[in-house]
Every structure is written in C-alpha cells, then in structure tokens.
C-alpha cells in the first residue's frame, strides 16, 4: 500500500505533541498529522483531575481534563488533523511509520517526525517486589483510570509506594474514591513532595497531615491470595520488617519513558534518562526525527512538556526549510548521585536549551555540593547548590556550552561534595 504523505508526523496527542502541532501551524506549516493510540486526544492530563495544569504555558491554572480539552479544542480550531485510535506499530523507513487503526493498517510518511509518546510508571514487577500476584496492585496511572475514567471500585485501604509529587496525585485519587491510606512508603529518608505553587500546598496540607509517611523503608513483600491482604515493609537501617494490612497497593513514580517506538527505530537512547538522546533543539540521533515531552526523561509537569513541544516546533520548521541535521554531537554523561541530565547532547549547530538551562535530577538528598562539567580534565562549569532534592528537577546553567570544544571528548557532569579535594582548574 502506498504511504500517506505529510509534512510533519507527530506521534502522541498529549501536551507536547499538541503544543508542537499548534506552534507549527502558527509558523505556517500546513500539512501536519497527529496520531494517538488512545480513543481520545489530550494525553495524560485527561486522567489527572486535580488543578495546577498550564501555569507556565497558558499562565492559568486548569484541571487536567480542562487543560487537555483546551489543547484539543485549539487543535480542532486550527484545523489540525488528529488520528485517534491509531497505533504506530513500527518503522518502514527513516521517517515513514506503519500504523494499525480501526480503518485498517497503513503507512504514514513525513518529512519530519516528532515523537511525543510520553512516559509511564514502572510497575511492581519491574521493581522486582516479591510475593503473590493478587488483584489490587496499581500504578498511579492505572488507579486514575479506574477512578476517573471508568468509575470502577478500587478497594478500602491502600499503601502508596513512593512519596513524591505523583504520589500526591495517587493520594488525591484515593481520597476521591474514599479509599483510606494506611501509609506512604519511601526508601529515601524523607518525603519528596515539593509543591509547585502555593495554593496546592494549602489544599493538600490537611490530606497530607492525615497520611502516615514511612521513610527509609522498602516494600519487601506483597501478601494475599486472590486479593491483596497486606504488605511487608523493611526498614533500610535496622532491617526490621513490619506488616501493614491493606487491600490496595499503588506504585507511584519511578518513571520510564515510553521509548519503545524510539528504540524500534534504532534511535540512540541516553543511559540516564532512557529516552532518546537529544540536543537542545530536540533532535535525536536519527535525521528528521525529533522528540519532545516526557519521552525525553520521564515525567515533568504538562506545561513543561507543552513548552518543549512548542520549542521543538520551531526547530522542526527550520529543518523543513534548511534540511540541516547535527553533524557532530557531544554527549553529556552523568555520574554517581546524578541520575540524568537533559538535554544530553551538545551540538555545534544547536541553540541554548529551553529556558536557557539544563535540567538534571539526583537520586538522593544532597547538601552543599558543587556540580561540575568536565571535558577531559578541564572544568567547563562549576555551580554550587545549597541543596539538591531527589525526584525534582534541578537547573544547571547553560552558558558554558560556548566554551566546550565541540570536536573534543565527551562531557562529564560530576557532583562534588563540600570538602572534596577537587578544585576548579
């Protein structure tokens, strides 16, 4: 079958994909197709019934569904074609993809492709939590669909695994479904719930105060024959094991990009983010293929994804005009407590990262540290931080990019604790 041709093919109709489509349209690119495997466009915000969406991109707090609706409506008004219930199944060429939909199977060929496939939480099995396999084990994502999308019963008493921003979504969803929360369990020494803005803090303060947080502990066993009957948690310091009775367990966070399509296409993945390697212009290792949103590094808030999509659109437009791709790419590698950094490629032709900073995350709480960027033995940048928080995005300045030798060695991003013997050379 002959492929259907278009200018830009966008995979994923969430905040990143739709924001990119709208911006492309505004920049005068007319032939755009957005595909989404879901029946309805809008992406993950559709399932998050709390407020706080859209602060940075729309400058107004929306609820998740309201935010998604707004983007879908705008796309409709702009005349952007969205194919829903359309699953991209693989690659037929560098920028030609195969799909399956109720209309049949086929191919979509484009001059540029934007992957905006989002991310998911790693389930219980991927975390190798032993025990039986009863009903009642969820992720925040599956829980939200149970409660808000399908209005199905969940359970009566839950344990939440994780204590970060998304765990708060799980907490609110459980409260909505009238499920009590026996505990929030985190392996880190304290919770990592940092409110993105003040009103949420006020709303959540009471709910959070009523929720016992067990820090420094790991879920070590799930018990129950047909339905969850309890979990065992183990204190990381003492090894002491205790049992919490519950009929529901919600695994939150521990994001992994939905990188399957990227991997099938042979795109280079970054070891830290596990998303496609990409430069500040959202260019991946495959010419003509861009990536934006949570596919790049796991969950950021929807507004960040939308800003990325909007930004990527400009670079896609440039690519449609000049056909230039990155010739030389200098990867940024991370070490130790730094989990990942994004963008993770620096290239001669690229501009500065979005909002003029790199984003990175650490695995543990750090105090009085310095993050340095090395090229070989040379320190290109050193930035001190009074504190770094895990499960939250930290910012690293980007002005050092100009002094990097783009024909030189790979760049290393290293964390130094105070009192370390290293000095800036």
């Amino acid at each position, binding site marked *: 079958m002959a492929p259907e041709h278009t200018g830009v093919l966008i995979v994923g109709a969430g905040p990143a994909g739709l924001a990119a489509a709208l911006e492309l349209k505004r920049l005068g690119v007319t032939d755009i197709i957005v595909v989404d495997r879901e029946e309805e466009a809008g992406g993950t915000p559709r399932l998050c019934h709390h407020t706080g969406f859209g602060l940075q991109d729309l400058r107004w707090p929306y609820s998740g569904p309201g935010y998604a609706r707004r983007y879908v409506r705008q796309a409709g008004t702009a005349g952007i074609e969205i194919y829903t219930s359309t699953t991209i199944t693989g690659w037929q060429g560098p920028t030609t993809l195969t799909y399956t939909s109720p209309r*049949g199977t086929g191919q979509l060929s484009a001059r540029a492709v934007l992957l905006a496939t989002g991310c*998911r939480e790693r389930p219980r*099995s991927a975390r190798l939590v032993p025990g039986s396999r009863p009903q009642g084990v969820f992720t925040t994502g*599956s829980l939200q669909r149970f409660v808000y*999308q399908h209005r199905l019963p969940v359970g009566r008493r839950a344990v939440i695994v994780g204590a970060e921003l998304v765990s708060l979504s799980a907490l609110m969803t459980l409260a909505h479904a009238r499920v009590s929360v026996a505990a929030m369990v985190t392996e880190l020494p304290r919770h990592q719930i940092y409110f993105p803005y003040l009103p949420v803090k006020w709303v959540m303060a009471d709910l959070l105060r009523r929720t016992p947080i067990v820090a420094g502990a790991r879920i070590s066993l799930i018990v129950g024959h047909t339905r969850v009957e309890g979990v065992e948690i183990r204190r990381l310091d003492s090894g002491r094991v205790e049992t919490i009775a519950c009929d529901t367990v919600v695994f939150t966070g521990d994001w992994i990009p939905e990188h399957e399509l990227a991997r099938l296409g042979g795109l280079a993945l970054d070891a830290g983010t596990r998303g496609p390697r990409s430069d500040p212009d959202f260019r991946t290792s495959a010419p003509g293929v861009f990536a934006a949103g949570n596919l790049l590094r796991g969950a950021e808030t929807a507004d960040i994804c939308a800003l990325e999509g909007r930004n990527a659109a400009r670079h896609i437009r440039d690519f449609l005009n000049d056909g230039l791709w990155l010739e030389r790419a200098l990867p940024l590698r991370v070490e130790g407590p730094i989990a990942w950094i994004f963008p993770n490629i620096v290239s001669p032709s690229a501009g500065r990262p979005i909002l003029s900073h790199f984003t990175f995350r650490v695995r543990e709480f750090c105090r009085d540290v310095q993050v340095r960027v090395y090229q070989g033995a040379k320190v290109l940048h050193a930035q001190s931080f009074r504190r770094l928080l895990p499960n939250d995005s930290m910012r690293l300045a980007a002005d050092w990019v100009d002094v990097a030798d783009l024909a030189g060695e790979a760049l290393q991003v290293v964390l130094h604790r105070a009192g370390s013997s290293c000095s800036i050379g």
Partner: protein
Amino acid sequence: MQIMYDVAVIGAGAVGAAVARELSRYDLSCVLVEAGPDVGGGTSRANTAIWHTGYDANPGSLETKLLRRSHALLEEFMPQAGVPFERLGGLLVAWTEDQRLALPALLEKAHQNGDTDARLASAEELYQREPHLIPGALGALFVPGESILCTFTLPLALATQAVLNGVNLQLDFPVREILPGRDGTYLLQGPAGRLGCRYLVNAAGLYSDEIDRLLGHRDFTVRPRRGELIVFDKFARSLVNHILMPVPTAITKGVLISPTVYGNVMLGPTAEDLPDKTETSTSETGLGLLWQKGMAIMPALMREEVTAAYAGLRPATEHSDYQIRLYRKQHYVCAGGIRSTGVSGCMGIAEYVVELLGDAGLELSLKAEFKPVRMPYIGEAGIRPYQSAEMIAANPDYGRIVCHCERVSLGEILDAAHAMIPARTLDGLRRRTRVLQGRCQGFHCHAEVVALLARETGQPASGLMMLGAEDGA
C-alpha cells in the same frame, strides 16, 4: 438424580484436557471436572513453556516413551489448532571442565532416547549462535528439536476441541469425595452437587495424590516444587536465539534462559520443595538467586526491563517417573506425578490413558466425525489480528488496540469473552489474549480491561477485582 457419564476426567490442566479430547473421538459421554474457575489455570500455566523432546529423560522410562509419542502428536496438532510454538533448538552449555566432560554421556542418552539430531557443539559454534553469552563457556550439547510453545493456548485448545466434540466441562467443581454408586459406578461429590461416572481418570496434578487416596491408594505423594521465573521485556528477545540450559544435576534441570512465544525472554526456574500446594508467591531469595544466575550467564539480559515475575508449582513425587496406573477392577486410571513435563507429554499421556481405559473394558468406538479446533493466534511467529488488514476490514475492532504493550485488540477481547470456553477472570482473559501481560502491567489498560470483561460477562467489576460485595459494583 445425577447424570451418569461413561468417563469423568478430574483436572483440566494440559493432561486432563488432552485426555478429555482423546476420549471425545469415541462414542462416549464424558465430563471434564475442574476445581478452579478455568482450564489450564494451575501448573500448566506457570512453567517454562519448553516443548521437550525428551532427549534427557531416563531411557526406558514411561516418561521418555510418552514424551516421544507426544512430540509427534503435538507436531501435528499445534499448527492445526493455532497453538503458537517456535522451533528454536536447545543448547546445554558447559561452563566447567567437569560439565564439558559430562556432555558426551548426555549425547549418548539423547541418541538412546531417539533424539538423533542432537550433537556436540564447540565453544566457537556456541558463541556464533549466542553472542551475548558471557565469555567462558567450554562447549555445548546442541539439541535442535527443543522448542517453545504457548502453555496458555495448548490446554485451552485441547479442552475446546473436547467440548466441541461433546465433552461436558464442569468448572468450579473441586471433587471433595468419591462415593460408590450402583454397579461399580462412582459419584463425584462437589461443593454444590454430584455427578456420576463408570470410569474415572485422575489428572488432578498437584492434587493427584489426594484423589488417589480417595480411591484407596497410597502409591505416591505429591511434593510441590516451586519454580520462580522472571520474564524480561521484548527488547531482550534479540539477545537470545536458543533455549539455553545448564548441565542438569540429579535434582533439577537448572536455571535456563529461553525466549517465549510472546517475544519475551524468560529466566528460571528455581527449584524448591514446599509443603504448601498453593504457595505460588515469588520470594526475595528466589528472585535474588535468579538475578545472580542471570548475571553469571548473560549480563546484557539483566540490563533489560523485567515485565513479570511469577512462580509455579511442579507436582514432583518421591518417584522419578510418571505415576500412571490402571486399576482394572476399579475402572480407574491414575495419571499423576507428571512432575515437570506435563505440557510436553500431555498428548502422549492422553493416548496411553485411553488405551488403558480400553484395556479395562471401556468400549471405544470412533464417532463418524471428530471436529477440528482453531484457536485465536497469540504468538509472535505468525500474524496477529492487529497486523491483518483483512481481519480489520472484516471487523474494525481488530484494529482497535486496547492493550498497547501486547497489541491486543478489542476484537480479540470480545472473542475471548464469548469463546466456547469463555474468559471469566482477568487471568483467563490474559491467557487467551495476552492482555495485561506486557511491560506496563496495566498502567494503560487495566481499568478498561476490567470494565470490558465486566460488561461482556455480566459480572460486577468488584468481583473481577476480588473485592467483597460490600464494596459495591
């Protein structure tokens, strides 16, 4: 007054389903009785899914004989019935000099068992075939016939064909008591009723010793042996080309690495004797041991995401061979102690069991027609509905994907909910379609699948989620 069947088969695992199917060729009234809510929901479901040639069985044993016969029968049945399988070949890898020296004897045994294709392979050939194995292997025994199959579809295909040909399937019928009826017949007492039969087959797997006791025999005791397994994401599939086995010990065939017919890679099983026949939990120790083994054989595999971890119980006994016996006067055949090769041996066992029933006087006259069965295809080696333009054109629901990880369409879910042996539980639906079996483990489709199955089968969602009635629907 209960119905009197000619034959009752207790246990609808691979063996029981195969026996029922074999009986359905004949002009008999038969019932297949299962304690659980579905066919193939016990040991048949949770194992390594290897289709053994029997190359390493004890020469001259009943197991060897029936495995050989079963192999030929499965070779014919599986393609016809649409049961996924892949002929990958097995490599028994020697890591030490002692193990390498043990290979010729294993080859000799394979030849004795009729596996004439088996041969030794050099370390060079081994690494050519399996470049991702950690360096250090000294050689291998290559068994081209070792294959993998779909342990979900096989029992369902056998039972479906049995039902198509007139066998009555009784689910949720744990046999609590076996009472003597009139003229040497049996009355099987379940929790909510009883049924009668003239001849009885015990294929109760883990519980075959208990059924045997109800008939007055104490020839064997099932000692459940737990096997824990880890399943890796589909991106691991390209790392492994064959079934990779260690050199076996007296107790176990050891931990192997094998592709699955769903395009994943499996690592396992452990072997641990347990007193409890329901203990199918994974353990920290078991998973830790597998991790260690995996790291020692193929570190590249361990960098891939884990899709699932599960445990199954093999019905091992104090004997090394199958415990298949005819009690002529009792009109009873025990097919128990099928310790670890039940799936591979099921069709050979079935033929043999029916032969024994004939010996005991069961009149076996072939029916005019034996209806064939065709199952929905859920393997990776053939065409799945989402890939078929024709199927989608005929029914757009085959193009409407519900489970994105495994690419299961709405059409397949509806088919499974309304099949001859319909899916009534989430696990039953999973085994029929692969739904919820993928890398996200339901992040995307769990709720939708529950809602669909509840709607299609008329059950409350709370029941499917195993919540008490007071939790509402």
